[in-house]
């Protein structure tokens, strides 16, 4: 069985301008939403309290909110979580109120209103922790970018490193754009997903670059565009199949993983889809426009060869 068998190379590079424009527009839209709407940061980042409760039967959020207001908690936000009998209560940080008292008060108030309530999860995050997470998250993002760029520059050439990182940052920004547009909750797990997308979708660029380098060695007469076209076409099948397989697992997480893994899987899905697009149709044209030529490869190649005695 074989899905992809191309007789001729697909001339991706001739469409390069239009595909890049498409991704530029998506990118600008994502930045626009991020700037205007911002991210709906989870409690880990903002600080505050989240309490998840389970009832024996369906329970109206408004009712729960009412019960809390009676107990003097006025600023709660109550939502259904997954099913109609699971509820999530969010409370903002308050000066001078310790988490210890708060969660007890809430549970007390809920028990008074409806004794069959079951506490599933409490999360309280102080303000200092949230700030640290934001800075740690940014550092991690920067580190991953720097690490990948250094590796690619060493393994290929700086043009490839720059092209790959632009393509992947573009993926990351688009994922964030989605989370901003739909105001999905951006939690620590989503951050983990975003960072693994960064590592994962660079793979795609690496596979294509590897093939471009090989082609430069093999086909001495072809133009750069032809070489890139051939490399993309040749790796096309692998790209789709691999990502399809990864996506199967991610879908399985989306279906079976429950609420906690929901946004994690969603972020990965967006990352996978745009990862294919960007590495094929963004990073490769970028390499071409930055002026990668055979000479760069032969030199980089020679350097790589002298460094690697085995090959």
């Amino acid at each position, binding site marked *: *069985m*074989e899905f992809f068998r191309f007789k001729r190379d697909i001339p991706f590079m001739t469409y390069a301008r239009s595909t890049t424009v498409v991704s530029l527009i998506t990118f600008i839209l994502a930045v626009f939403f991020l700037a205007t709407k911002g991210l709906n940061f989870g409690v880990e980042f903002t600080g505050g309290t989240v309490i*998840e409760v*389970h009832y024996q039967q369906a329970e109206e959020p408004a009712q729960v909110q009412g019960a809390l207001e009676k107990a003097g908690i006025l600023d709660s936000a109550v939502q259904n979580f997954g099913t109609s009998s699971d509820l999530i209560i969010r409370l903002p940080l308050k000066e001078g109120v*310790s988490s*210890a008292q708060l*969660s*007890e008060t809430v549970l007390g108030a809920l028990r008074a209103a409806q004794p069959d309530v079951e*506490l*599933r*999860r*409490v*999360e*309280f*995050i*102080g303000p200092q*922790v949230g700030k640290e*997470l934001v800075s*740690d*998250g940014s550092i*991690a993002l920067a*580190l*991953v970018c720097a*690490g*990948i760029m250094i*590796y690619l520059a060493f393994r290929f050439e700086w043009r490839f490193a720059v092209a790959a990182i632009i393509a992947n940052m573009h993926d990351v920004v688009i994922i964030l754009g989605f989370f901003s547009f739909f105001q999905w909750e951006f939690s*620590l*797990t989503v951050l*983990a997903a975003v*960072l*693994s997308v*960064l*590592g*994962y979708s*660079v*793979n795609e660029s*690496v596979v294509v670059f*590897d093939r471009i380098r*090989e082609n430069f060695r093999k086909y001495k007469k072809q133009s750069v565009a032809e070489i890139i076209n051939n490399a993309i076409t*040749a*790796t096309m099948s*692998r790209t789709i*199949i*691999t990502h*399809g*397989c*990864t996506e*199967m*697992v*991610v879908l*399985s*997480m989306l*279906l*079976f*993983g*429950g609420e*906690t*893994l929901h946004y*994690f899987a969603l972020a*990965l899905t967006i990352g996978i889809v745009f990862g294919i697009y960007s590495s094929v149709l963004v990073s490769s044209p970028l390499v071409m426009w930055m002026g990668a030529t055979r000479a760069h490869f032969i030199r980089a190649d020679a350097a790589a060869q002298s460094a690697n005695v085995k090959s």
Partner: protein
Amino acid sequence: MNRYPRWKYFVIVIALVLGLLYSLPNFFGEVPAVQISPANSVVQIDQALLRQVEDDLKQQHIPYLGIISDASGIKVKLTDTDTQLKTKDELQRALGDNYTVALNLLSASPDWLSGIGALPMYLGLDLRGGVHFLMQVDMRAALNKQLDRQTNDVRNALRDAKIPLGGVSREGQNLVVKFKDAETRTQGGEELRKSLRDMTGVQLDETRIALTLTPEALKKFQDSAIQQNVLTLRNRVNELGVAEPIIQQQGLDRVVVQLPGVQDTAKAKDILGRTASLEIRMVDEEHADLQSLQNAARGLVPPGDEFYPSGRDGQPLLIKKAIILTGENISNASAGFDGRTNEPAVHINLDTRGARIFAQVTRDSVGKRMAILLIEKGKGEVVTAPVIRQQIDGGQVQITGRMSVKDANDVALLLRAGALAAPMEIIEERTIGPSLGAENIAKGVHSVLWGFVAIAIFMSIYYRIMGLFSTLALAANVLLLVALLSLMQATLTLPGIAAIALTVGMAIDANVLINERIREEIRAGQSPHAAIHAGYEHALGTILDTNVTNFIAGVALFAYGTGPVRGFAVVLCLGIITSMFSAILVSRALVNLSYGRKRKIDHLSI
């Protein structure tokens, strides 16, 4: 061409057998158990205790599946939860307050597996349920308290040197010392430099000097403050009867407390937040005879005394109620050695007020014993009861005599830990109910399982026999990953399970690369043997590259992630390592084993 030397097969088989062995305990499930651990440093887990527990169980006719004794305590495996509760109550009654008896779940895997160190994966709180607290130590408040104590030292040093003093006050993190004039200021500065070694002074103006702790003294103070808080918390958690609590310092000024299985957060918070105190009192030497002690044990306690049935070395003591000093007056305690005899010793530093009182008391009571008590919840415990050998001036107290180095350390820590050195505040709390934990496990396992099944079906259809080999290699990958996680006892969280799923999804990339390459080579007219060979060779470089970039992301996540995300990163990184092994070596071994012997392959099923 496509043959492996025998040793390569051997290595692969060994790896897989070990993988199977170490991932095995995860499939046995868990049995209820009770765990006995020491509640304080007075008692120890030893063979005698093990025998005692066994005898108790036999006397009460409690059936049990097995007894294990290890560093953390004695664990008794039981048949059901009813027996578990009964056994807990029974053992707690039999063993007394010196031991904590807690409910626990233990792996039901056979003992020989546990014997070779094969344990099930260590589940994080989001999978097993429990409470997690992150506590911030208020170093500023602790430092202020310390500086307040030192104002007395300043006053006394100057009084002893007969230098007139205008006043001492704490301003921020400084002590500002005021003098009458420039001359006394110079003298005073000189004197303070000599007598207060851990402070440095800056001249503010004609008559004032500002004192601060030296950086070394500050660091030492902070270190001991947090160590003290950790120890105090540990002592308190022991009371809760938690099977495997984690109490750890995190960063410079934070403490993580994890209590698996605890649901009563209100009680946990109450106990963690309580304050204990330390008291120094005299032993009633007039009633130290056997007769008085026996009477006291029957309830005839002489007036003004309190009876302690077991002191530090197990001897009963009658101790006077009058308090000489409290923990407030102990500025530091450390373990060390006696300067002359080289015996292990505990050194205690008292503040000036404490030193003055101590000098007076010891002068009057040479030859008598004094007791140091830890009072918590209105209940006292004798930490140590040494004999006073001579009058002690200057607030430097040394306790020696029949102590091991470990004893000395324990006493010093207990003295320091009597009360929390610095106030603490809960800055992060996570409580996961047990049902949610179990659900999370089920969700995670289903995600991995169905993701795997989908990939297996697709690969076997799309690449046929080669796809089947890839699937087998992928299964080997999961096996090795689970075995590695079990062996390392790395904490598995729900994001960690997600990382297993993701590893499955990403590891197949290597095999797809290889299979696609083989197809391409066959299309280019290569013979099947040459195609297989070339496919693996060419794909290798690419596989390495892609895994390195993934690894970089994983390491960064590990370095800067906290809690569940760190669990994700660990699995991701380990998964990359195992997938390299299985995707390249295991799948190649399968191919070589089935095709390598044939001289010519007519048709490669791909």
